[in-house]
């Protein structure tokens, strides 16, 4: 088919761009995961409720900012290239991860926490044995969402010279070369779907059977 012509004729290039794209995603997203969970955890510790609420309202509001705006702002202050792009992607991924982590931790049943405290668990033990395990669904959801929007935004980030599959799409748009556009869009879509599916599988593996059962209820 005509549509696939560019794709089939340029596989090495496409693979290279795919790898670039994946790299942009992986670095920015994994740092965001660690940072986001960290901020989510420290802002929900007992006694720090005000900070928690603050973090929640800020991340809640900024989730509404379009990805393009973040890219644009980073460009203004950091110029073009892969590094500014990764920074933009990092910031953009950070928001849903932090929001979901904080929100998930805030919603842990107070009875479980009281029982854990009464039984003699230290605060750290309560965090790692009770709070985090029961918050896995919320945190995982944030991480998955962040991954998908990261890959999508990385495509747009090509406009500030980040490389990646977005480049192919942009050139295609400029030249109105449908085949080229398709050759860029298909891998991006597949990448997003694949990463999402993988993370969904991982989530199931990590969630204890007990959590799965109580979710069904």
């Amino acid at each position, binding site marked *: 088919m005509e549509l696939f012509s560019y794709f089939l004729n340029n596989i090495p290039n496409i693979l290279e761009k795919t790898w670039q794209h994946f790299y942009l995603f992986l670095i920015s997203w994994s740092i965001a995961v660690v940072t986001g969970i960290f901020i989510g955890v420290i802002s929900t510790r007992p006694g720090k409720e005000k900070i928690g609420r603050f973090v929640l309202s800020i991340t809640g509001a900024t989730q509404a900012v379009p990805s393009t705006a973040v890219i644009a702002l980073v460009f203004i202050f950091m110029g073009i290239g892969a590094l500014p792009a990764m920074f933009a992607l990092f910031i953009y991924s950070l928001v849903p991860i932090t929001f979901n982590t904080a929100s998930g931790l805030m919603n842990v049943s107070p009875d*479980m926490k*009281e*029982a854990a405290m*009464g039984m003699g668990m230290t605060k750290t033990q309560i965090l790692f*044995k009770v709070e985090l395990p029961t918050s*896995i669904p919320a945190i995982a959801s944030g991480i998955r969402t962040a991954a998908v929007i990261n890959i999508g935004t990385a495509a747009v980030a090509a406009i500030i010279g980040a490389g990646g599959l977005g480049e192919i799409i942009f050139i295609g748009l400029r030249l109105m070369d449908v085949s080229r556009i398709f050759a860029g869009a298909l891998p991006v879509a597949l990448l997003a779907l694949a990463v999402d599916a993988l993370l969904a599988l991982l989530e199931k593996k990590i969630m204890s059977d007990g959590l799965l059962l*109580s979710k069904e209820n």
Partner: protein
Amino acid sequence: MQIRLDNLTKEYDNGAFKAVDGISLTLEQSKLTVLIGPSGCGKTTTLKMINRLIERTGGDILFDEKSIDDMDRIQLRRKIGYAIQNIGLFIHMSVFDNIAVVPRLLKWPEQKIKNRVEELLELVNLDPGVNMYKYPAQLSGGQKQRIGVARSLAADPDVILMDEPFGAIDPINREKLQDAFIEIQEKIKKTIIFVTHDIREAIKLGDKIVIMDNGHIVQYDDTINVVNQPENEFVESLLGSDRALKGLEMLRVKDNYIKDFVSINAEEVKTVGTALEYIQKKEKSYAYVVGKKGILLGYCTTERLKKRDKHDDLNENVKKTESVQPYSNLMEAIITMVESGLTSCPVVNSKDQLLGIIRFKTLVDIMSSFEKSEE
């Protein structure tokens, strides 16, 4: 471990509000002491100061005369069992892992933990084979509560704190759990401090009762003394006007039944005629009928038997009846009698074998003794 509260105080708002106001109390070992009082009287606050979930503002709590401050807070909590109203089961852990939490914190060897979990599940009447690896989401309310109790006993603590542990279940299951709990306590004999707002539960379970109001202790005594000799009007109103009836709940069937009664063995007596003769010879109007191995089948009355032909099969003329067990209380015995209309109530063991009977007259005598002390 002996626990003594010495002028224990908890203040809020810089002394503006005293939740607990200088209470002093020595808790008796191996007894179940109930803290009861109206909402806001300070009972839960007192309980939570013992395992330092709430930090006291004044006075001291002494464990074997050692101040609570001299112990590490976390280690203290691991040595005290704690069960709360909404249980707080860890939903992401299996029943096994839930119970194993404190033993694991104390670094018990895994085999010891496994044995202990099995032991505890049997203690609370849950089949370990079936339940050990279930998750909280798969348990009923009553089962969850039992696991909560098992969990609090896991590391074999000397002291157990319980804050309305049976509060979140329906009345019928709550009665069953209370009965089961009484049996458990007879076996394990722990020092238990039990908070409730239900006076019937307090009377039923408590060896000693502490009545609290506005952060003070109003009365602290053996249950029977509190019921018989309420300190003042406040305690009286807490007990309610049916004190005598409530008093029956304190007493166990096992202390009050007699083994000398008329019964007919259905293995030997087959006909109505023989049965009737036997009962009339004993000058009674009814008798209990037992079957193989002494299992209670029911009762038969002379009134009913007279209407039958004397060659009729006895088994067809036996009426079933409810029974009580040794750990049931006398209130349940009275209720059973009222339902059956007989002047006694049969006592059976867990295999349904007839052990003895409780006479209505006995109960009336007991209630009169309560009433006499009112005057």
